């Protein structure tokens, strides 16, 4: 059987970075398994810019970012890529891989999962009305436009102000479609502030906050949607319906970490992130199985994904080389406005970065981190669910902590 020190599943931004991290930390035999015919994952359909400011100190397109990062390990003999290969099952540390040469079984000492995320489809939000042509997730429309070269609609409405939806509002406008508007259920936008400015405001595309699409209508092709306003409890306000003619509805209503493979293995998932529960080494509840990138929790920026991937790769290398700490882990608890925390647990003894999201908009607030032996308040001017928060705690700050660590927002 084919064996490797480390197998990375998914050759997108997280997987490439994990490979680099693992190599830099001493591994000599790394295999990256990628479903598509090329590396880069979703970056390959992101031809807009805004990538790489943190990693390369310049603003790149998604495709250029992928290329530039890939070039860091392109000629590295310790890292091999297997393309057009799909992992269909993991048993213990053995992967079953489907390829055009046949089914392969590959054994690994450690596995990093970097399979990205998927878009929440119409069925998952119970979108009402007909099952006609013209309703797409924003990412699928992006693939049709940027990779196949055609528009799936000429008069477009967008539900959800997630970043892909905003990016597609601009893309479709630039390619000749009319984007009528964007509806967002929440009273605040779910995308990055810069995308609201650059993708909607600059093109005079209206954003309907506290609105949702009640139903879609059309026999073979979408003909119209019903837009409806919601109150502060997100309940639909009867009588506020308006019919909007359009031939395409794009959905940008959330991303879900893609975890089918490890879910089947029994890896413990966090119901909030929908990704694996990990420690500060990005190790899941099954020893030697690591997760990073959007498969762990959905990130805002590719630069953060790369950083996380690199750390996970390093930690996986430590594990393979027997350098992982055996100490007890400390659990993170979240409450009062903090929606989730990654990692969910950690080892003391080093500086640690904690990533989380809040579950509503806060202005002039504190992030309160406390436990037995630690009490810290971090002032924040304003935090929103759409922007991932990071808090760094120094080794010394954590030293006297006994028991669990708690996180909350004090408004």
């Amino acid at each position, binding site marked *: 059987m084919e064996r490797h020190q480390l197998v990375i599943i998914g050759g997108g931004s997280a997987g490439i970075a994990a490979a680099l991290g693992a190599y830099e930390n001493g591994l000599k035999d790394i295999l990256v398994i990628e479903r598509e015919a090329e590396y880069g994952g979703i970056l390959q359909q992101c031809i807009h810019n805004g990538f790489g400011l943190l990693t390369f100190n310049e603003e790149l397109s998604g495709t250029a970012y992928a290329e530039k990062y890939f070039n860091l390990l392109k000629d590295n003999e310790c890292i091999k890529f297997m393309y057009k290969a799909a992992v269909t099952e993991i048993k213990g540390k053995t992967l079953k891989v489907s390829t055009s040469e*046949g089914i392969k079984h590959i054994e690994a000492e450690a596995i990093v999962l970097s399979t990205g995320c998927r878009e929440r489809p119409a069925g*998952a939000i119970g979108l009402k009305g007909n099952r006609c042509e013209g309703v797409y997730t924003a990412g699928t429309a992006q693939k049709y436009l940027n990779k196949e070269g055609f528009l799936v609609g000429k008069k477009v409405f967008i539900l959800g102000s997630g970043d892909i939806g905003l990016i597609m509002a601009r893309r479709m406008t630039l390619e000749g479609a009319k984007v009528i508007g964007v509806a967002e259920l929440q009273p605040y936008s779910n995308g990055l502030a810069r995308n609201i400015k650059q993708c909607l405001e600059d093109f005079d595309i209206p954003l309907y906050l506290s609105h949702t699409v009640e139903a879609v209508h059309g026999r073979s092709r979408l003909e119209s949607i019903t837009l409806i306003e919601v109150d502060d409890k997100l309940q639909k306000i009867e009588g506020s319906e308006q019919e909007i003619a359009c031939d395409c509805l794009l959905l940008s209503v959330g991303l879900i970490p893609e975890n089918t493979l490890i879910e089947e293995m029994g890896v413990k998932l966090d119901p909030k992130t929908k990704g694996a529960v990990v420690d500060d080494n990005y190790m899941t509840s099954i020893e030697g199985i690591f997760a990073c990138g959007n498969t762990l929790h959905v990130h805002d920026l590719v630069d953060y994904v790369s950083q996380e991937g690199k750390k996970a790769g390093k930690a996986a290398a430590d594990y393979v080389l027997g350098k992982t700490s055996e100490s007890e882990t400390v659990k993170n608890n979240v409450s009062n406005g903090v929606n989730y925390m990654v990692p969910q647990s950690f080892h003391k003894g080093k500086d640690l970065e904690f990533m989380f999201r809040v579950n509503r908009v806060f202005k002039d607030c504190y992030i309160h981190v406390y436990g037995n032996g630690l009490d810290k308040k971090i002032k924040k001017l304003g935090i929103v669910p759409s922007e991932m928060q990071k808090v760094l705690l120094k080794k010394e700050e954590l030293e006297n902590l006994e028991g669990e660590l708690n996180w909350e927002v004090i408004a």
Partner: protein
Amino acid sequence: MVDITIIGAGITGSLIAHNLSKFNLKVLVLERESDVAEGSTGANSAMIHSGHDPKPGTLKCRYNLLGNRMFPDLCKELQVAYLPIGAYVAAVGEDEEATLDKLISQCEERDVPYEVLSGDEARKIEPNLSDGVTKVLSLPTTGIISPWEVTIAALEEAMLNGVELKLNYEVKSIRKENDHFLINEEIETKVLINCAGAHCDEITSMLRESPYKVIARRGEYFVLDHLNGTFVKHVIYPVPGVMGKGVLAVPTVHGNVLLGPNAEDSEDRDDDSTGKGLDFIKTQITKTVKNIPYNKMIHTFAGLRPHIDLNDFYIQEDDQIENFIHVAGIESPGLTSAPAIAKDVVEGIVMPKFIDCKVKEEYIRRKPFINMTEMSDEEINKLIEKDPDFGLLICRCEKVSKGQIKDVINRKCGATTVKGVKMRCRPGMGRCQGGFCEPEVVKILSHELNKKINEIELDAKGSYIYMADAKEDL
């Protein structure tokens, strides 16, 4: 001249065609939609009822009982899935227990196997049965199938044996001329069988005043992701009410779970839209089951039951027009009944008109759809050796290879649309609902059918994926 023309390629029309394909007859099936199984057949609870429920003395009762017994063998013959998972009818409180007792005595009278459980006994086996459930009627002969798979398989095999299918063919006029019928002034047929589902009275009206009127009754459903028996293992019924069997939880042959349907009369017979019914289902379903994993919801759909005002199936040769056969009002338990209806129509009504006609000496069997998730590595490697595309995974959620997609396009009764591919081998049926694989399926369809990308449709005629080239309208 065609011997027999069947209008409608739903489950009944297709099984009639399949039965007729065994004889030396010229058989034609006309379907208005872009694929078979598009009407009521494609959108229902996908289950084989035991026969405990229909009113005594009705055709529904007779055919349900017969069909239930025929289905396991039919599925074996067509090489499609049939799972005898059984059902629980769950009663809450004394009034419902009284109704349950009526069903129990019907089971006795009809020789339908059953068992009676207390709520607690049932909850031991089905832990997600609601706490309020006090008594359960267990029906082990209830099964589940994929209705479109059965329909597609039946027509595929019929077509392998000479039956012709015309898709996107709407019947607009029928005239009776001496000894034959003339359809749309172009098709001549000796015998005409009306299996037009929600439009059967419109077809009849082309020849005479229809003895029945369709009242389309819409039913909506939720689809949950693969739960593989972790939520419910049986079909869970409430006790039946006036509008039908109530809101069910039904495991599917692919490991998903359906929740539904509601029942709402619809003036528009083609309106398969979902709406308030979904909210109704959410409130009703809690009566029988708890801990519903709505976070696993991946799809919603609606179907139309072709209910007719006679409140029973209407299956007979017309009393005024010779050789015109009605197969009307085939609503629940229509799916279960279909094999028995097809047998009776063919043996009892059609074949006596062709007494000299012989059974074909050679009959070609279809090959089953290639289901790679149930194959050993050796079997898969053999496929890949023949065509490397069997190793190229296109749909990650349902684990479907490019080879499988090519296979379902290139068969008789093959897929011609994105939905057609989805119904036959499942890319797009999973948790991402085709978000990743649909563009790939479009390209494969384009290549295999030798069509341009802008000619590929999602489903119904005119539902093109492509709208315009980038920058075309600038």
